[in-house]
């Protein structure tokens, strides 16, 4: 198709626009009845391209009922797009109705939408799931002509993406003629994304339309004045430079990597803000109303800068942003491009971005990322296979809508790319789980949620099951959070429950840009006052840090190992690397450099593995377990994005034996039994699958035992039915998700026979950042009990066993000797207060 039909051609011409090539390509695909994936950078008229075929069709053949469903990962985006579409439709006088449906849609409008749906419905994966679980779903979706998935790259490979993929398979069963349109940023794995979108799980059944971005973004590397920091990730040393850049631009987004960093950078900027520039902050823990206000102020051009986390990675196009500053390492090339693309949303002009590395390694990482962008490379994992927990939720959703036959549902599900490799056994076990829990002990026959009729179809057993399904719908499982409420005032946001458990009345912390003083805990809310004395702490949030991507890690290694590639590096970094070459050696591009050296009465082992913090934490646990068996008495370890550092009482010998693939065997099994990360994974899976009930934020617990502790279930299930479907799902997810076991396996295989061990007399230049890294994991036998024994003994020693009541109380056992030399000393309260919380607490079980 070369041109647009009327009235579209006239409407475009009146604005002096010509339709873009990809917009016409999508029209053509629609005409041929083909499914299509559009890869285009932001600002390319991508969304309009997705809708144009539907508008053209409806303009020519007006009709009632649902024609196109649009799914976006963000509610706000759906609402914004509805507004942007309504304008041209009204201007052209087209007989097309457009509405949104999200969690915020009022009940009366939802009811009306069921009776009388609009032509175009804009929604989210969760709301679509809910619509599909209604008995009237077949009537509602029967005439559907198109399914448009926006930001497909951000959905594929996530649990929300799994949920959406299953919903789309369902839609295909209800409306076999519906075309699929995927809209996505440019990605590293377009084939995988096509397969994800495809109705046959085959990439070739989806046409690919790709628009290369016009100009490459322009990067500046901003170093702090004075000394370049060795460690730290906050980038506070560069605050004056960041502020000057904000002053010089019209509108800036300052992207940071964590919420804690957002609070600190925001505070640092305001300390410098003599001109009182309107600078705001945006992160996922701020109260939703506050976030909306910041977004609105940004849209209206009332802000000069906003300090933001990933909460602004996606979202409404602001257009007027002319500068993006990334503080801290970018962690991934695709992520960097996504962020940079938030500035200057016009395809033909380059986006400008400033990279502000916080330490020396981050300088190398920034340079590596810049080179990757120049080379046109992207990173990111291909979408992983769909989760069984999400499938369980889907099975219940389908059953709530109408009785189904397992054979038919299985055939439907494996048409989704994410579930193409699902075995019939796993599918049947998931259905069994939904039916009666799927336990080896046939105890719950009377309590089944589904029952089978004589034709083998499964029916839902009553309204209660449907109610439960609706209550627990969704794949986002929140960490237990508490609202932060000002005394006599409103809610300012929320913090994780465990953080509150580390506070004492009078302690203060930085939140939402102000210092708050903790007063007391009310049911469901933390009561705080403004102000406070002493250095405030900063709440950190579990799992909020993105790990370094494998691709970028390889580029960092390649730069480090090859002095010819140091040209782009600033002088202090070059000097640092030269010194490393002199005192030890440079980490090889391929193998693995391990240094050992004595320091302060201990031995240190530093492995230059470059696999990201998560993988290093897991690897640290496994290697220290092995060291323990070999009698090296490991005392602790720390993982950064780049290296793993372990300290021990005795000199580590034969280090090759510590980094072999077989640590993924025995040590792995032991670790799985007690890993808090695995428990967290299980909790999420059990919640999504509907085994335990979702925490509803803000809802008061009416009794102390109302929510069932997932750790207890995990322990019992592991002992009595280790191959239960939810445990299988947990292990599968652990292999790639939180624990990055897959990355460790690849690393160990890659470096086999290529380990370089250097025994040094002292710490090497490259090892310094790791040794000053915060957030250490202590080993102490690797287990809670050794830690408890040590803590009990310390308290005993310090109090001379003094009791708070008069009479004698016999003591338990002889206190165990304290291991190691640098154990936590009993620090004074004031000192303790001034310390930031580092890292999530290990095992807060209950």
């Amino acid at each position, binding site marked *: 198709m070369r041109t647009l039909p009327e009235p579209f051609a006239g409407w475009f011409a009146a604005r002096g626009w010509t339709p873009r090539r990809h917009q016409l390509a999508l029209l053509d695909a629609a005409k041929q009845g083909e499914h299509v994936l559009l890869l285009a950078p932001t600002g390319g008229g991508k969304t309009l391209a997705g809708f144009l075929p539907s508008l053209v069709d409806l303009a020519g053949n007006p009709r009632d009922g649902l024609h196109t469903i649009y799914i976006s990962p963000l509610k706000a985006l759906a609402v914004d797009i509805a507004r942007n579409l309504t304008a041209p439709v009204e201007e052209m006088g087209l007989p097309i109705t457009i509405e949104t449906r999200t969690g915020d849609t009022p009940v009366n409008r939802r009811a009306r939408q069921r009776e009388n749906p609009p032509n175009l419905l804009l929604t989210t994966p969760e709301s679509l799931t809910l619509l599909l679980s209604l008995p009237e779903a077949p009537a509602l979706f029967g005439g559907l002509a198109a399914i448009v998935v926006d930001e497909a790259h951000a959905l594929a490979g996530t649990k929300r993406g799994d949920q959406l993929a299953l919903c789309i398979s369902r839609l295909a069963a209800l409306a076999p003629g519906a075309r699929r349109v995927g809209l996505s940023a440019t990605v590293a794995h377009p084939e995988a994304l096509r397969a994800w979108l495809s109705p046959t799980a085959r990439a070739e059944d989806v046409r690919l339309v790709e628009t290369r971005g016009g100009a490459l973004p322009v990067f500046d590397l901003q170093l702090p004045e004075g000394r370049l920091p060795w460690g730290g990730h906050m980038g506070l040393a560069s605050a004056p430079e960041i502020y000057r850049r904000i002053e010089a631009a019209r509108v800036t987004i300052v992207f940071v990597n964590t919420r804690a960093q957002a609070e600190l950078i925001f505070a640092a900027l305001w300390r410098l803000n003599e001109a009182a520039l309107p600078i705001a902050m945006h992160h996922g823990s701020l109260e939703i109303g506050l976030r909306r206000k910041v977004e609105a102020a940004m849209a209206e051009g009332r802000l000069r800068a906003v300090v933001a986390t990933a909460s602004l990675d996606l979202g409404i196009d602001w257009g007027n942003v002319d500068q993006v500053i990334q503080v801290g390492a970018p962690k991934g090339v695709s992520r960097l491009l996504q962020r940079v693309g938030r500035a200057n949303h016009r395809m033909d002009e380059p986006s400008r971005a400033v990279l502000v590395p916080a330490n020396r390694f981050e300088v190398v990482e920034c340079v590596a990322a810049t080179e990757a962008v120049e080379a046109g490379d992207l990173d990111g994992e291909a979408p992983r296979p769909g989760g069984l927990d999400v499938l369980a939720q889907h099975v219940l959703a389908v059953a709530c809508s109408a009785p189904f036959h397992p054979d038919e549902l299985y055939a439907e599900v494996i048409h989704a790319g994410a579930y193409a490799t699902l075995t019939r056994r796993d599918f049947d076990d998931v259905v069994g789980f939904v039916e009666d829990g799927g336990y080896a002990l046939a105890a719950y026959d009377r309590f089944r949620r589904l029952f089978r009729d004589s034709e083998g179809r499964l029916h839902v057993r009553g309204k209660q*099951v449907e109610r439960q399904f609706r209550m627990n719908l969704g794949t986002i499982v929140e960490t237990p959070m508490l609202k932060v409420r000002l005394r006599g005032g409103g809610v300012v946001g929320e913090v994780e429950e465990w953080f509150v458990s580390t506070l004492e009345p009078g302690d203060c912390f930085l939140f939402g840009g102000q210092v708050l003083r903790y007063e007391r805990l009310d049911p469901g809310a933390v009561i705080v006052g403004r102000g406070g004395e002493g250095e405030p702490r900063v709440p950190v949030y579990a799992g909020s840090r993105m790990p370094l991507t494998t691709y970028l890690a390889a580029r960092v290694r390649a730069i480090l190992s090859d002095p010819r590639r140091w040209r782009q590096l600033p002088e202090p970094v070059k000097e640092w690397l030269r010194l490393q070459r002199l005192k030890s050696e440079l980490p090889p591009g391929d193998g693995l450099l391990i240094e050992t050296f004595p320091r302060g009465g201990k031995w240190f082992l530093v492995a230059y593995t470059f696999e990201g913090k998560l993988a290093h934490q897991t690897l640290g646990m496994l290697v220290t377990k092995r060291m323990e068996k070999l009698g090296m008495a490991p005392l602790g370890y720390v993982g950064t994005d780049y290296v793993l550092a372990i300290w021990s009482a005795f000199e580590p010998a034969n280090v090759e034996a510590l980094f072999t693939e077989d640590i993924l065997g025995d040590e792995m099994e032991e670790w799985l039994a007690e890993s808090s990360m695995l428990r967290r994974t299980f909790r999420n899976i059990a919640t999504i699958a509907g085994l*335990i009930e979702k925490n509803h934020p803000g809802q008061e617990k009416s009794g102390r035992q109302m929510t069932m502790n997932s750790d207890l279930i995990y322990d*019992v299930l592991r002992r009595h039915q280790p191959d239960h479907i939810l445990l299988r799902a947990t292990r599968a997810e652990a292999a790639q998700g939180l624990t990055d076991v897959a990355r460790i396996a690849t690393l160990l295989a890659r470096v086999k026979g290529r380990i370089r061990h250097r025994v040094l007399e002292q710490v090497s230049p490259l090892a310094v950042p790791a040794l000053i890294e915060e957030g250490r994991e202590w080993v102490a036998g690797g287990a809670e009990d050794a830690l408890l024994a040590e*803590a009990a003994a310390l308290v005993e020693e310090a*109090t001379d066993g003094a009791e708070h009541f008069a009479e004698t109380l016999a003591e338990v056992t002889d206190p165990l000797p304290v291991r190691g030399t640098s154990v936590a000393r009993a620090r004074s309260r004031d000192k303790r207060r001034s310390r930031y919380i580092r890292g999530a607490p290990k095992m807060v079980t209950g």
Partner: protein
Amino acid sequence: MIAAPIHIAGERLMLDPAGVLHWPARRTLVVADLHLEKGSAFAARGQLLPPFDTRETLARFVPLLRRYGPRRVVFLGDSFHDDDGVARLQAQDRVALVQALEGAEVVWVAGNHDPSPPAGLPGVVVAELRDGPFTFRHVPTAGAMGEVAGHLHPKATAPTRAGGVTRACFVTDARRVLMPAFGAFTGGLDVGDMAIAGLFPRGSRAFLLGPERLYSFPLAARRTAARSVTYTQPTLTIG
């Protein structure tokens, strides 16, 4: 397994790291809050928790009966998660329980979850049991002397250098013992909660359960319900 002796009213009681209490002078074994058949109680309401909790709880409890060989076993209430729980017992579990209790005097103290006698199981049901200086009852009462009670499922978080470690625990002072919940599916209430802290106006000591031994920490007296545990000096750093 090393049990910890404590002395109340001149009597010696042994706190077992498994979460039971033994009174050697009377060869009495006390266990609280088994909440048997909690899994099936949830299942009856549509939440299909694993049905293995009773088996798991008994697998931990029966060896203790064998080891102590008590003359009397006191179940301190909430032995079943609900009054129908006993009827839902799997045959295999019922047999295991009855066999293990053989030869002992069995006292079921009524709990709020299980006020009625457990039909078909040996033993007597009482509201509370008095013996010597002690009163064994389910719900603790403020100001009581020589009381052994359950109901509150105490747990405590001990600060260690690798972060807080939370365990079920005994809480005790010179007057009373508050027992940890024994059941496989029993969660806990923090000892800082006023429901527990209020029972110990002059402070107390928590004994956290471990596989081999107990870990003892003093707990300061407290007046307001602010946060979890206030430990007496020295406060250990979490970090």
